[in-house]
């Protein structure tokens, strides 16, 4: 942690970055985002297992970008998100410097995003065993049971869009649900509006989701909506060969293979 604070302080001191985005202690034993603009503010940086928010969501925010080059404290999922954003031309080396935290909680320095990418590629995206268990359990249900499960889970959703706001990949200035010509998804948060919103969200994240669970952690009602993106992730793996966020590679869903396999087209 001292190493992290020191590094962050030096970067600000040297004006290598204008703002460091990291974690600080928040309410009720939680951590929250810290935007340190002065070297002395880096003393508030903390890092431990409570730091699960995906800070990459801030690097596309206008008011944060206005500050100048960003130094981002990034765990593995955050780094993945950064690389995905880079591949979608949302961030670049001029605007962002990554201060990495390895899965072993060690600080690691990167010269540029290419190095971050190389680091990210050392790890596969793995769905944790508890979530996998839940997915399997759902898999074993009949379609009707699954439908009832989802209607029950999604009914409380009041469409605050915290899932969208917390997701680093949801950076569109105007989301499809905010368009009304045509109005694809009903605005009110009734069952139909909710299920269509969550289908749309999951599909738009297919091949892009970095499985950081930011959406689930953000949900004030703890709806397990990350199961949807996890299912997409497994499908991508199973049917389309899987994916890793990569700065230059084609995106899973904007490319194809002539021999993609399906078992349902007649």
């Amino acid at each position, binding site marked *: 942690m001292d190493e992290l604070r020191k590094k962050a302080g030096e970067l600000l001191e040297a004006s290598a970055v204008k703002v460091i985005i990291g974690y600080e202690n*928040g*309410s*009720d034993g*939680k*951590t*929250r*985002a810290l*935007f340190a603009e002065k070297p002395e503010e880096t003393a508030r940086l903390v890092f431990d297992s409570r730091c699960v*928010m995906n800070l990459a*969501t*801030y690097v596309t*925010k*206008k*008011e*944060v970008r206005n500050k100048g080059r960003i130094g981002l404290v990034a765990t593995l999922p955050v780094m993945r998100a950064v690389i995905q954003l880079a591949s979608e031309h949302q961030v670049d080396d001029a605007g962002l410097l990554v201060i990495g935290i390895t899965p072993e909680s060690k600080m690691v320095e990167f010269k540029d995003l290419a190095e971050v990418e190389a680091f990210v590629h050392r790890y596969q995206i793995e769905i944790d065993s508890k979530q996998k268990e839940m997915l399997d359990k759902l898999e074993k249900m009949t379609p009707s049971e699954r439908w009832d499960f989802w209607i029950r889970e999604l009914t*409380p959703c*009041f*469409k*605050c*869009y*915290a899932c*969208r*706001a*917390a997701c680093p990949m949801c950076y569109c200035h*105007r989301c499809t649900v*905010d368009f009304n010509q045509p109005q694809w998804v*009903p*605005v*009110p*948060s*009734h069952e139909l*509006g909710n299920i269509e919103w969550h289908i749309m969200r999951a599909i738009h994240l297919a091949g892009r989701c970095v499985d950081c669970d930011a959406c689930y*952690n*953000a*949900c*004030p*009602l*703890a*709806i*397990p909506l990350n199961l949807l993106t996890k299912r997409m992730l497994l499908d991508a793996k199973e049917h389309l060969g899987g994916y890793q966020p990569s700065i230059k590679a084609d995106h899973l869903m904007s490319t194809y293979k002539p021999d993609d396999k399906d078992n349902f087209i007649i």
Partner: protein
Amino acid sequence: MNIEKRLVRKGSLEKLFNLLKNNGNTIMGPLERNGKTRFASVNSFRDIASGYVQTTQSSKEVAFPRAEKILDYSKNAAGMSVKGIDPAEIPQVVLWGVRPCDAMGIGELSAIFNWDYKDKIYNNRLSRVTVIGFSCEKADEYCFCTSVGGNPGSTEGSDILLTRMGGDGDFLAEIITGKGARIAALSPELFEEAGNPEKDKFLASVPVRFEREMISRKLDKIFESDEWVSQSLKCLGCGACAYVCPTCACFDIQDEAHGRSGSRVRCWDSCGFSMFTLHTSGHNPREVQSQRWRQRIMHKFSYMPDRLSVYGCTGCGRCSRACPADMNILEHLISIQEAEV
């Protein structure tokens, strides 16, 4: 009317619940799912959540649902037929397990719906609601009702307020309104002589953290302050705070069409969304999140007191608990109080 004090045995609570239920009331109470609590129709007394400091969602939905039909239309050969909602379809509701801050919130919500034009749809719903409040035995660091005119045992807004006397004790029932009295009259034997117990000693302690009048005065001077940007940098721009808030009343009106018929629906909206004020031309009066965060605070602590003579905050702390970015309203209010001008 004078508040009448009675004793309700802990074992009688379920009887009271069943009595109300059998009397044709829909009972809305806190139900838990995935560790979060919200008010929904309760079938059995056993399903009611307990042990919560405050429910995740407020009870405002009982009078201001997140999506409610305001009219139906259908196009036919003869032209157009439009039908409003029939008040008779609105159920009689007993709101069970409401905290005093939520009960107080009903008054603030009503102030919005009743200044100038009196919103009939809202009032129709509210008039069919009886509020059974439960005092707070415990509080957490997010609670600040005492800073905004409430307290953990406040009777404001409740028809009956129940205060648990000691850990597993019986309840002191305060019968506050005519509606409350009608409930008590349903089964007088459940409401025993109470004597005069010292209610305060059973209540949670919530320290006063700021003075709301001072916040209000300060807000007049810091509209242009950088404070808004620094407070809201971490704000993600979602609507969680507004949707869990007991007093947030912003709404949208949407048409839902299916073929030649459909309905017009009033549904929740939030000033925190970038789309909220966006003009068709592309011009947006509140373009960035700091302006929208400022609007939220100004509306609750400056505009509402100015215009409606009530504040728009009950100190329930829900917005802070629900915020995915840990925007803590109490912290921000204190820093506004302390801001230099």
